[in-house]
């Protein structure tokens, strides 16, 4: 039994959990190849024009998995609790894939904490769907959770170390993990920051609990969990960062409002906003990041 995992969207948050879980159940795991221009083109063909770029990439990744695995994993996520919602795209992803690629066998779990559909229950349900016992499922789930926790903790430690390093130009990259860690969307940005002498620090990799605590201070009514994590990260280390890059993938719903708020509220630290769309070439991006870092370097030189 081979489970196909699209390397897009929530893969960048729960990939370790998923792979560990399925392998512990005795399944093979097949990944789609890392994003290329072709992935975006394919995905756009199977998406509504106005859909956000990350979701178009996702459809491209699903398309590339057709026929190479037994089931494609497409989770359905709605909420983690009261006032802990996610972008509605995640509510619909499973049904969108189902309607776009009918007769393709999918595997799904539903995460809607407020309706009693917790994560553990969802994973046990998936295992049952694959013919595995609940006991084995629970053990596999716990193993997966621990592996994910360790992977996340290692990433957090790395960001914290980078923030402490003296004499570096720390640029906080504030955007969803499926943007910044995607080779097509975020790759050019990370490379450009490094090429200009900056050290990228990933807001999405900081400690989630600490971020959740800081978020209400910046935004009182924010209810999107993934955005709260980013806003909290900003609150946590805006003081240590030399510059902040807000990155929005067109036309991300939550970001259209959250990044506007951050732009208006962040004072005392250089902030730039980058909008990623399907048509932008790398050159414009690189130029903007170069000049952003130049300005920061100048500022640092003056205050020194």
């Amino acid at each position: 039994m081979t489970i196909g995992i699209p390397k897009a969207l929530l893969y960048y948050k729960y990939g370790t959990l998923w792979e560990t879980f399925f392998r512990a159940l005795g399944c093979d795991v097949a990944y789609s190849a890392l994003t290329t221009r072709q992935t975006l083109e394919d995905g756009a063909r199977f998406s509504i024009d106005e859909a956000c770029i990350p979701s178009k990439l996702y459809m491209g990744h699903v398309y590339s998995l057709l026929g190479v695995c037994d089931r494609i994993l497409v989770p359905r996520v709605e909420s983690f609790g009261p006032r802990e919602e996610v972008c509605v795209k995640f509510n619909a992803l499973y049904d969108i894939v189902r309607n776009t690629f009918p007769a393709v066998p999918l595997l799904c779990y539903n995460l809607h904490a407020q309706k009693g559909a917790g994560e553990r229950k969802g994973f046990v349900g998936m295992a049952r769907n694959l013919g595995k016992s609940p006991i084995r499922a629970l053990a596999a789930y716990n193993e997966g959770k621990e592996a994910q926790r360790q992977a996340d903790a290692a990433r957090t430690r790395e960001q914290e170390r980078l923030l402490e390093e003296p004499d570096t130009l720390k640029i906080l990259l504030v955007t969803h993990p499926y943007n910044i860690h995607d080779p097509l969307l975020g790759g050019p940005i990370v490379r450009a920051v490094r090429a200009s002498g900056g050290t990228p620090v990933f807001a999405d990799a900081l400690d989630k609990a600490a971020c959740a605590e800081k978020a209400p201070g910046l935004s009182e009514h924010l209810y999107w969990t993934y955005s709260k994590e980013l806003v909290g990260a900003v609150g946590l280390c805006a003081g240590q960062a030399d510059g902040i890059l807000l990155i929005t993938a067109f036309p991300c719903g939550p970001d259209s409002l959250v990044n506007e708020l951050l732009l208006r509220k962040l004072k005392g630290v250089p902030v730039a906003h980058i909008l990623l769309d399907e048509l932008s070439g790398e050159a414009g991006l690189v130029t903007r990041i170069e000049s952003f870092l130049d300005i920061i370097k100048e500022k640092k030189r003056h205050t020194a």
Partner: protein
Amino acid sequence: MEIISFPHLGPYHVPIARLLRRIFPHMEVRKAPPITKRTLELGSRHSPDFVCAPFKYNLGNFIEALEGGATILMQAGGGCRYGYYGEIQEQILKDLGYSFQFVQFLGKEATLASLHRACRELGTPLTGSRLLGELALTLRMLWVMDTMEAYVRENIGFETTPHSFETAYGAFLNALEDVDSFSALASVYKTYRKKIGGLGVRKPVDCLRVGIVGELYSLMEPFSSFFIEKTLAKNNIMVSRHINLTYLLVLKQLEGKRLLRQAGEYLHFPIGADGTDSVAKSKKMAELGYDGVIHLKPFGCTPEVNAMPMLQNIAKDYKMPILYFSFDSLTSETGIKTRLEAFHDMLLMRRETRREAPGSGADMSHTA
């Protein structure tokens, strides 16, 4: 004296203003100035570029209300991005230099107690139970309005005297402004049910029937859709729309899981805000043999974009054309009118084809 104002939502400013006057008799309640191109321009200029259009309309309303002297602004919230509008709008208006009080009623957090507390902070003389009574009366008024409006919508395309429906409905809304009790409301309803129900209508049994689904603001604020329902009526089409405030505030909550079941195999889960409704009601209307469905949304509206793959499948499976619109601050009215004309022509042609060769199943369900 404090001047309290709120954004537009079609004809609903009537019950909203009436309710606010009852809750805050010591304030002047003013609906925002009517929406014009300037409202949209103002709102767009100060909004994030690709936020959904209702945000821009709301912001334009707020700015024009403040220009007119409003001191308190009211906003609601719920659904998709709508719950987060208020915080950003308040920040933008403060950054523009306006001073005002901003009051938000967020659907997710509202209880009668919290509502009453918020009203008391603003100085309402009403007790909790009086407030509940006013809210109940308002909900009943919304039901009366929506029932009347549905009748108008389905028959205005066939009125024998031009503008008779529009005039009568306008008078009905005026009469609602002075209602202060359930009996007064019942009396107004009875009077206008007779008046509007008695207006001359010549509606063929086999008239064209079109359903309208989509995002709530695009459906309920006619300016944002370039008065699309009016255009359809002028073309002698019977228009059905399920989404109105009574549905959103009451009926949808009561429907619960039944809504998802209505969507059949097209949906296993809800897809956000009113996207699920778009799918469920389109399927229902396809089964009822409607000639077509029109889907309205602001550009980028994620729940409605989510619904589109399902709608495309419904159109294909039931051979019922669905026309999709996206509205934002730059939408061209001519473009809308042209596409509507073409859609209308297509619906008529399909009727002809079916009449000439019943069962030929001419598949013209693919629309842009």
